[in-house]
């Protein structure tokens, strides 16, 4: 097939982002024009990028463009295969939604903040993501990676007058550099073996890796990409950094920037490192399970709506890693068919999570936009003033809880199926791990549902709890369009999963040499099967259809009675007291209390109650209640580590005494040592 359209569209999308970024910077003094340029060029880039991705996925052969740079090892090489295509497609869907949303969202920045600078960073973020997803040279990849990290820092600290924001930004940038360092070491190791920095040469040289080198490189890459993806225990930057950014940026950070870590893992673990031993896959699987369960448990304790969503990103990254880990195990055990199903589960969940997490963050952004608070305890009743936002958020909440017939269910179902297949495909005691991982996935799913019942109900239902949520308005139209687009995507990918899944054929063929699309689909293209004889089957389309059909008799039953008798509105039962107020409502803290008690070993909750009373302690006049949970990872891991580093730094202080003579001596000694090394050969 002609490579022309993909290349042209790809170049057009790069140009739109790059050109838009500088045009924004140039027009910063005219905020309205700048806003139009920013959103317009992002939308154009998304459209071109999306078309390129669709064409790139559909054509079977990977495309390669390479331009020499004149610097040894460094070439401008881009590879556009199906994996790159999928991540670019995800990026394009999100970039389209966010650019539409931002059109109204950025209006509040006019006259207050520099939209030019914001647009510059925003477009550069999209550009760097495209580079990361297509780079075929280690240095080009790292360059894109670093630009992405720095630009994201600029966006995270956009509200820099806040002390919390600055601290979060610092934590983020430190972690980002630790991960870049790990990646550099990993790539250095591969370059040493292959003698080139091109990904293609890594793949050919993979056979020459000794098992020690392979293991070392795996650990570096897993750390590097894992920190970016927010796996536990390297997650602490994520719930700090994502919520403080502007909401449209939070949506992109959680939706797609985290996925750069997943992309890197898929790219390197399934390409440049050869066939990894099964312990590597099991490690990824176990880390995935831990991230999923702990992520959702911490999310349950949050009542800051954006932090809650950020913790759910950790959970979903865990679910993706379960699929990816299973892929690696099956590949090592010689079951390429199963590996392909597990990989589809992982990549499909990546796409799905990107969509519904972006949707939820945009919804939270609309709520924040109109109430001015991130604290759920002050919200409530928003479904009446903001019906469209509430509906979109509800769809996102159902999808992220993995409930049928939406898209989250399909990818979780595939993950379950590959876990069950793992029991038969592996030997020894490790096979027990797969069903156990499946039961932990079930726990995660049920806890996520509990958490989103809380998030939706406390935010949108019943009575308003705070003054902020009494006088609110629906979000402007462009924000609703952005959310609506993602809502439609959630529904379409859920109900139409069987029509979408065959496009993964090119991906699994390129990475694993297997086409399983036809095995996955049966029953006139309506039924999704697990890709193995007998296996399980499910059909979201029929489930959706069945739910609608069964609705008819139930509506008839109810309306039959209601025709004869009146429906009326009445007050909620108030135990005979004079009317209910918002003080009688359940709060987010109260909702999660049973789980806080059950998992108290993890949370170490601490609470303090001070009551002021006159006569009897049963009739207090005033109560002050304080409750907090222990941030275990910060307290047990990071604070001791930081203290250790500081103590080490103090020890090292004497060698930097400020004496110029000592410094000259250091330079001299270093020079001698380097000469010794250089002359030695």
């Amino acid at each position, binding site marked *: 097939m002609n490579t022309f359209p993909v290349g042209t569209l790809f170049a057009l999308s790069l140009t739109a982002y790059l050109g838009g970024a500088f045009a924004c910077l140039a027009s910063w003094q005219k905020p309205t024009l700048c806003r139009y340029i920013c959103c317009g060029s992002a939308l154009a880039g998304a459209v071109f990028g999306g078309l390129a991705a669709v064409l790139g996925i559909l054509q079977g052969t990977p495309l390669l463009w390479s331009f020499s740079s004149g610097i040894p090892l460094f070439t401008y090489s881009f590879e556009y295969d199906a994996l790159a295509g999928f991540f670019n497609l995800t990026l394009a869907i999100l970039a389209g939604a966010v650019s539409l949303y931002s059109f109204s969202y950025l209006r509040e920045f006019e006259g207050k903040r520099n939209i030019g600078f914001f647009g510059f960073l925003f477009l550069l973020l999209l550009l760097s993501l495209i580079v990361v997803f297509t780079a075929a040279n280690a240095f080009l990849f790292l360059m894109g990676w670093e630009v992405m990290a720095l630009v994201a820092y600029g966006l995270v600290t956009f509200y820099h007058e806040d002390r919390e924001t600055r601290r979060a930004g610092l934590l983020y940038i430190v972690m980002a550099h630790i991960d870049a360092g790990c990646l550099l070491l990993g790539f250095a190791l591969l370059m040493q073996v292959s003698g080139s920095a091109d990904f293609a040469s890594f793949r050919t040289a993979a056979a020459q890796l000794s098992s020690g080198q392979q293991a070392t490189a795996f650990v570096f890459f897993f750390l590097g990409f894992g920190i970016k993806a927010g796996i536990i225990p390297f997650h602490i930057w994520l719930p700090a950094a994502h919520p403080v950014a502007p909401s449209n940026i939070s949506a992109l950070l959680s939706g797609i920037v985290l996925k750069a870590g997943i992309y890197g893992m898929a790219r390197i673990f399934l390409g440049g490192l050869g066939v990894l031993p099964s312990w590597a896959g099991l490690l990824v699987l176990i880390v995935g399970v831990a991230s999923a369960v702990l992520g959702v448990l911490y999310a349950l304790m949050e009542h800051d709506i954006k932090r809650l969503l950020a913790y759910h990103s950790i959970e979903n990254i865990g679910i993706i890693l379960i699929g990816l880990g299973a892929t690696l195990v099956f590949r090592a055990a010689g079951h390429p068919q199963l590996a392909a199903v597990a990989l589809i589960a992982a990549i499909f969940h990546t796409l799905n999570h990107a969509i519904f997490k972006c949707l939820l963050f945009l919804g939270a952004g609309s709520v924040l936009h109109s109430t001015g608070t991130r604290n759920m305890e002050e919200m409530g009743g928003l479904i009446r003033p903001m019906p469209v936002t509430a509906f979109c958020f509800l769809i996102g909440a159902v999808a992220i809880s993995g409930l049928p017939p939406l898209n989250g269910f399909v990818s979780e179902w595939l993950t379950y199926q590959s876990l069950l297949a793992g029991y038969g495909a592996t030997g020894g005691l490790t096979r027990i791990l797969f069903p156990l991982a499946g039961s932990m996935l079930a726990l995660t799913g049920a806890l996520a549902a509990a958490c989103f019942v809380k998030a939706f109900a406390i935010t949108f239902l019943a009575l308003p709890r705070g003054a902020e949520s009494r006088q609110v308005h629906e979000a402007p139209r462009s924000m609703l369009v952005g959310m609506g687009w993602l809502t439609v995507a959630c529904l379409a990918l859920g109900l139409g999963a069987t029509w979408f899944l065959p496009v993964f054929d090119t991906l699994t063929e390129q990475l694993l040499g297997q086409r399983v699309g036809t095995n996955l689909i049966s029953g006139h293209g309506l039924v999704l099967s697990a890709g193995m004889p007998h296996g399980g089957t499910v*059909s979201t389309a029929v489930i959706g259809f069945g739910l609608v059909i069964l609705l008819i008799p139930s509506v008839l039953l109810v309306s039959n009675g209601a025709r004869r008798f009146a429906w009326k509105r009445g007050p*909620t039962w108030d135990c005979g007291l004079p009317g209910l107020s918002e003080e009688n409502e359940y709060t987010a803290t109260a909702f999660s209390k049973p789980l806080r008690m059950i998992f108290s070993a993890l949370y170490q909750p601490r609470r303090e109650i001070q009551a002021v009373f006159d006569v009897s302690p049963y009739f207090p006049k005033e109560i002050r209640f304080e409750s907090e949970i222990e941030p275990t990872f910060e307290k047990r891991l990071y604070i001791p580590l930081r203290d250790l580093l500081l103590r080490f730094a103090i020890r090292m202080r004497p060698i930097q005494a400020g004496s110029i003579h000592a410094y000259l001596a250091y330079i001299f000694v270093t020079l001698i040592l380097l000469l010794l090394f250089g002359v030695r050969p």
Partner: protein
Amino acid sequence: MTGLLAKAGLQLVLLLLVAPLFSGIIKTLKARLQTRRGPGVLQSYRDIFKLLHKGMVIPETASWIFSATPYIVFVTAALVGLMIPMTTTDAPLSLFGGVLAVVYLLALGRFFLALGGLDAGSSFGGLGSSREMTISAIAEPAMMLAIFTVALAASSTNLSEMAKVAVSQSWKFLAPSQMLAFAALFIVLIAETGRIPVDNPATHLELTMIHEAMILEYSGPYLALLEWGASIKQLVLMTLVVNTFFPFGLSSDWTARGLGLGLIFYLTKMLLLLCLIVLVETTNAKLRLFRVPELLMISFIFGALALISTFLF
């Protein structure tokens, strides 16, 4: 296609008709064990009929979620009922959703039920929703482990496939893995259907109720749908337990003779399970809420042991 619709219609009718009967039988049996006369086995039908012909009061603070909830609860329960083998191994919609779809569709109903509980804005609804979501969350891993044990033996999550494998093999309930999985699933059944010692369906005592607290604000036809949906859900879970572990008499086709025999066997097996549940309900006191996790932990351990014993034996 028409065959599929006919089967689905037949099973739907059976499902809708039998579900309230079992709720009634439980109530009557319980009353007899407590030396009361009880309301009679048909009382659940009378309740539903009565409620369907009453007006209703909707809380002033409630939104459309409150009104959508009864439909979603009812519809998900009924759809799930078409995915499980009741009298034959060949469930009508088995191809379109296996045991995972069953669990997750019930979770969809529960999701909205919990939202509906919170929508009215009283503390009771929130209390019920919070407890319901908590208990179901910690029951989920035990349930999945027990189900996986059976699914792995049949190498399918499709319920008809599982039933066929169970029927074709010699009955092996006495195998340790089956007994342990049954014990695990029985505990989960008690928790999921809200029976003593986890929840008391007969109480409106504020501090102990779970399911009743969520539906406290519902009345009239909505309440009828919710009660009916709850009894269908209970039927579905009991059928799952009965037909997975005791597959006797499951007809392999949809002939009248097979169905008739299957129905007789099915009703007998269910009646025995009901007796067991009633015995458990009558001989136990309701647990304190924070003792429930321990019970479910036992169930989880049973599930894990069941899994390990498939590996050992």
